[in-house]
């Protein structure tokens, strides 16, 4: 009567610390340039080496410019951080995929596409969106830099076991409704702290019907409900996606692995600490209007009125609307859009580019809209070119940039200016997230594409046959 979460977690417990957390063994550690330098400094200060360097993979993604990656990074502070990761990886004997190299990309896009993330694994990274890797059926979660140092040194982490929660979405998704809309819908219902303290298993027919790319998007956003991580039990969709990828087992080992992975499911009588069920038909294309990802509504809906907000939440609600320059009760459709961002570990995969292209094909980018289309990895970029999507997009007035986290958190030059509105496929609409004073509206690639060709917030269903 165990949940899949229990099975994977318990199998990795090295010991229960007396009166404290579990010592959990970690199968895979990813490091990016922002949250790792102080961890490597810590190792040096303590005179430590990595216990299992072969289980650790490093790549820069947050600071990398999305143009001219063949040239040195212009911002000296960004360059220093990116260079530090390369130097640390070399010093400690870790695999490193440098900027502009064929294997580089956003860590949460590269991990699954190289099958470095596999079912049944424990996976961590100093990044809250590590939950993405849960889509392959792994227990994956974000950690702080001190915890990165723990794993570098001991391949283990001390961690209190979270409680388990199952979110089932049953039925068929409506036209123009994507995994991103599912996630934004869940956040709007559960709030940004609704799943805090829990590890989420996503289940139900609507989740099963998602492609691997869709599952990665859904799991990616688990943290935005407060959950430590989210995952989906592996199935034929998972196996078909992973097969033949670089780090997937091959030949007989593959067959054996799949047999093992088929056992990775919650028992029928498993008891979850919390369970919620939603009807897929209830979910519309979504967009956010405020400054946390839980402040979302149907794209054809309106900003809530003050009486719809509980009293203790009103100061934050009013602060958010003031920042966004929206009024309670405003309709969202028709509001002007200055920027459109397609990309990030949330929506920077091939399927997202196909979706965007399907809307803009045969149309033109609205004049005045600045659009940044940023593939999640070099492999995604190659696939875009192989499918000819770049030509479709160029004809509609869009350029493809080079891979990286880009305008999701604007640590590179891609910053949305003060006061400008950006319909963004990324994961956070916090104040200043896309640049100081920027105003972010989170949405799916379809909704972003509809805004890009009209210059205003638009229901993507208007463009779908």
């Amino acid at each position, binding site marked *: 009567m165990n949940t899949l979460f229990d099975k994977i977690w318990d199998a990795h417990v*090295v010991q229960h610390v007396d009166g404290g957390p579990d*010592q959990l063994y970690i199968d895979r550690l990813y490091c990016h340039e922002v949250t790792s330098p102080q961890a490597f400094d810590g190792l040096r200060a303590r005179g430590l080496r990595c216990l299992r360097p072969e289980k650790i993979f490093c790549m820069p993604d947050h600071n990398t410019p999305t143009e001219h990656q063949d040239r040195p990074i212009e911002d000296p502070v960004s360059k220093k951080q990116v260079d530090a990761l390369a130097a640390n990886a070399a010093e400690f004997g870790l695999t490193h995929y440098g900027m502009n190299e064929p294997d580089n990309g956003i860590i949460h896009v590269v991990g699954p596409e190289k099958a470095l993330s596999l079912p049944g694994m424990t996976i961590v990274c100093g990044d809250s969106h590590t939950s993405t890797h849960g889509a392959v059926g792994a227990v994956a979660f974000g950690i702080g830099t001190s915890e990165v140092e723990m794993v570098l040194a001991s391949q283990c982490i001390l961690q209190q076991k979270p409680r388990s929660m199952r979110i089932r979405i049953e039925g068929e998704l409506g036209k123009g409704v994507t995994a991103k809309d599912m996630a934004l819908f869940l956040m709007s219902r559960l709030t940004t702290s609704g799943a805090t303290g829990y590890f989420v298993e996503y289940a139900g027919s609507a989740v099963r019907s998602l492609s691997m790319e869709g599952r990665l998007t859904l799991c990616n956003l688990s943290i935005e409900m407060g959950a430590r991580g989210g995952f989906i039990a592996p199935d034929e969709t998972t196996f078909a996606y992973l097969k033949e990828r670089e780090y997937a087992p091959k030949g007989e080992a593959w067959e054996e692995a799949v047999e093992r992975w088929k056992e990775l499911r919650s028992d029928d009588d498993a008891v979850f600490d919390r369970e919620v069920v939603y009807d897929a038909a209830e979910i519309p294309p979504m967009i956010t209007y405020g400054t946390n990802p839980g402040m979302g509504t149907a794209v054809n809906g309106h900003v809530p009125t003050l009486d719809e907000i509980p009293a203790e939440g009103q100061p934050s609600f009013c602060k958010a609307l003031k920042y966004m320059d929206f009024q309670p009760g405003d309709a969202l459709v028709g509001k002007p859009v200055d920027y459109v961002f397609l990309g990030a570990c949330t929506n920077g995969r091939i399927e997202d580019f196909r979706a965007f292209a399907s809307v803009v094909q045969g149309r033109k980018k609205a004049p005045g809209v600045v659009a940044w289309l940023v593939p999640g990895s070099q492999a995604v970029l190659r696939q875009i070119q192989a499918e000819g999507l770049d030509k479709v997009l160029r004809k509609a007035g869009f350029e493809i940039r080079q891979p990286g986290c880009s305008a999701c958190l*604007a640590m590179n030059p891609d910053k949305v200016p003060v006061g400008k509105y950006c319909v963004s496929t990324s994961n956070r609409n916090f104040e200043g997230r896309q640049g100081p004073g920027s105003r972010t509206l989170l949405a799916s690639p379809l909704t972003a594409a509809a805004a890009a060709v009209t210059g205003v917030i638009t229901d993507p269903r208007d463009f779908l046959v």
Partner: protein
Amino acid sequence: MKQKFDIIESTCVPLPLENVDTDQIIPARFLKATTREESFFGENLFRDWRYDPDGTPKRDFVLNDPRYGGEILVAGRNFGSGSSREHAAWAIAGYGFKVVISSFFADIHKNNELNNFVLPVVVTPDFLAELFATIAADPKAKVRVDVPNQTVTNLSTGRSEAFELNPYKKYCLMNALDDIDFLMLQKDKIEAWEAGCSK
């Protein structure tokens, strides 16, 4: 910074907003540092709420209000949501806070605080509401956080609550030890686990 925790008695800085995310605690553009200078992060704690773009302190933000100060930050529910950046905990520590009191913390940030010798104290919503009222009425009101006995007391009203802290972390905080000190002593157990796994 590693330090031994015992009893902390201090005035408080109130931040009665909910869902304060780590992007507000320390914006992403300050994450480019490659060293752990807490003073740098502390200077930029709540940067965009605290300063205008030209660096002028915003008069209406609590850290710029001379009436308030102390080693305890009191914040609305769901403090530290969003990004896992430990820089947020470094900024809080670097500014000089030893304790953050809220009715609810985001998971990753809570761990990050503990790993940096900042103590997150979870109180009931009632206790928090009363504490905000107490501080609003008297900015010099004090709170006592007693780590050995795991109690938090509003010294103006006398209201006291127990707070949770697992015995392992309590031992670490009271003795200025961190998790890496502990893990480096566990190599035999790690290798035994690996050997069992490969069978």
